[in-house]
């Protein structure tokens, strides 16, 4: 199902090991070693035939390209300042090539109840060290696929975000991942572990930014754990350059009475994939996953979402929307699992696509697997152009074709943008998405 990986990864891995020398604990060294062995053994998932998970996304070009990893990298603030979305009231953390830049991040002004620790700095603190050791790679397993293995082999620069019991962190934590290197094409390995302890809450923004001219590969993994009665509102923005590859895996685990809200916005990269899996491992928990993707040119955006209802009385909502133009392509794989015993599960999933060009294509596959009784589940997918009758209704009110289609396309996108509860972020997203929507005219 896979092919072998380019030599460059092996070189970089060895190089990293010699740089780190003995400054990492054994457990981390073992984890990385195991991950790397897995990568060497399994390679990347390039084979698509019979491989349902990767059926519609061809990564052979990505798998063949030799990307280099540059651990130490200095970037002038002026070089990326205009790319970063931030607000003074947010806790802004900047990562360059996956590594947290302590000098340029507002790391000290944290609110009470939250700690952010680089894995590589955690070893002096036995308690934190143990916390990371116990939870890292618990839900993102190293043998899941070649990309998770690769990320784990280069995990050193990752961070832990830990929210204390009962802590309500009101100001959003804003993580900006900038892909930048003096060597091209380059790769970065962002890695985050978020633990929301009992009865805590957190707003978090993950945004991926990159230079539009360089060819790069972002291989990101995050693990998010919600303990009983905790709540996380998660926002993700993919706004890297048009010449980038982005493979991201996110694993979320919900304990009882917890709430996970996720809103994902994607509008860049040559090929991108967002693999999100939410386990509802406690009773009476709720997840609400919303997404908007906007594709143009020959872009390819793949959202691969799984929701796993393991315990009873869980509620899940999955609502993704796509706007496709030119020769672009989108893939939506949304699967809801209702395990035996997960009674009174309530789940709705939907994927709607607006195809604004005859050459654009979407493969939308919503699926439901139900092994429990007494559940309520619904799913659906649509793909189509703007309805001519709808446009006529607006024209009959004096609104011209162009304005009418703009109102409809904006309206389509707004449903997802409206899910954003952080005013500053919402404004930026409106700018990024609504202002860049194609000027589309229907032909009659």
């Amino acid at each position, binding site marked *: 199902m896979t092919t072998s990986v380019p030599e460059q990864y092996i070189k970089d891995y060895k190089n990293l090991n010699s740089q780190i020398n003995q400054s990492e604990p054994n457990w981390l060294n073992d984890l990385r070693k195991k991950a790397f062995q897995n990568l060497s053994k399994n390679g990347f998932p390039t084979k698509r035939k019979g491989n349902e998970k990767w059926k519609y996304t061809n990564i052979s070009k990505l798998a063949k390209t030799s990307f280099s990893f540059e651990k130490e990298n200095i970037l002038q603030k002026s070089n990326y300042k205009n790319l970063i979305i931030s607000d003074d009231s947010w806790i802004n953390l900047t990562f360059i090539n996956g590594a947290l830049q302590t000098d340029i991040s507002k790391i000290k002004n944290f609110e009470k109840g939250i700690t952010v620790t680089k894995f590589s700095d955690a070893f002096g603190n036995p308690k934190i060290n143990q916390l990371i050791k116990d939870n890292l790679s618990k839900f993102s397993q190293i043998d899941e696929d070649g990309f998770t293995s690769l990320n784990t082999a280069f995990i050193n620069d990752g961070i832990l975000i830990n929210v204390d019991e009962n802590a309500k962190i009101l100001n959003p934590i804003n993580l900006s991942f900038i892909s930048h290197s003096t060597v091209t094409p380059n790769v970065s390995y962002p890695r985050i572990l978020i633990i929301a302890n009992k009865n805590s809450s957190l707003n978090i923004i993950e945004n991926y930014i990159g230079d539009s001219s360089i060819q790069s590969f972002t291989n990101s993994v995050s693990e998010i754990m919600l303990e009983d009665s905790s709540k996380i509102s998660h926002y993700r923005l993919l706004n890297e350059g048009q010449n980038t590859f982005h493979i991201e895996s996110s694993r979320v685990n919900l304990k009882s009475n917890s709430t996970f809200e996720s809103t994902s916005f994607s509008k860049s990269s040559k090929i991108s994939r967002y693999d999100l899996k939410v386990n509802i491992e406690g009773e009476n928990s709720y997840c609400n996953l919303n997404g908007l993707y906007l594709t143009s040119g020959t872009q390819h955006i793949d959202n691969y979402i799984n929701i796993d209802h393991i315990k009873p009385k869980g509620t899940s909502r999955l609502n993704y929307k796509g706007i496709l133009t030119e020769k672009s392509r989108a893939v939506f794989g949304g699967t809801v699992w209702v395990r035996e015993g997960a009674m009174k599960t309530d789940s709705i999933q939907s994927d709607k696509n607006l195809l604004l060009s005859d050459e654009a294509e979407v493969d939308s596959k919503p699926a439901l697997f139900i092994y429990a009784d007494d559940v309520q589940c619904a799913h659906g997918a649509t793909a189509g152009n703007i309805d001519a009758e709808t446009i006529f209704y*607006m024209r009959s009110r004096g609104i011209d074709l162009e304005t009418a289609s703009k109102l409809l396309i904006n309206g389509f996108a707004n449903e997802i943008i409206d899910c954003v509860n952080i005013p500053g972020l919402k404004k930026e997203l409106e700018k990024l998405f609504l202002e860049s929507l194609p000027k589309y005219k229907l032909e009659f």
Partner: protein
Amino acid sequence: MIKEKSLLEIKNLHVSVDDDIKILNGINLTIKLGEIHVIMGPNGSGKSTLANVLSGRPGYNIDKGEIIFKGEDITSQDPEIRARNGMFLAFQYPMELPGVRTWQFLKSSVDAIRLHNELPELKIKEFDKLLEEKKEIVEMNSELLKRSVNEGFSGGEKKRNEILQLSLLNPTFAMLDETDSGLDIDALQIVAKGVKNYHNNNNSVMLVTHYQRILNHLSPDYIHVLMDGKIVKSGDKSLSLELESKGYEWIRESILKQS
């Protein structure tokens, strides 16, 4: 200025849809300012097609004839231009516009028409004031204005929204395509009140309906019976009462007898 003159003239209008199915077979009709014309007729006789073609709906072939509106031939004019020049169609089945807020839709529409008439766009406050006044007429709930256009509206709310648009846009010529169908007695009264409130000597109404009951609230000048794409009989208000009691077959029979 245009008073006494005809607002709309339909001359020998022949319309078909694809596959050469003829729907209108030579319609002649003149509507003057201040008049209310009612189009009645059995299902499939071409009533809705007439209203749609007049409003410029795509999908129809105009094989022959012309439509003159305010002295100008508009037979092949775009629908938005007709609307800006004062034409309005209340839809039989108003469309839902997901994600487009009613307020925004109404404002875009009012502004498009104002700009065309060389008036500035309304300031938000001015528009809100106008909207507040007009929505009272149709007893429209303010909450609906914040929602997407017609999405989740009941049948009656959709029709009231059409009449709200009529009041806001204040067109010179309003066509109502079965606006009274499917309404309960209260909603029908509200719709009729809206039309009555709108109508004056400086505008005209063409009402497509199956029922006499809305006519009790209005005072139509002419009743036209459309059958097989032609106006086969015209009369005054009493004709609608006759149709209500006798149906359409007697007209068909009398035509057959004549020929």
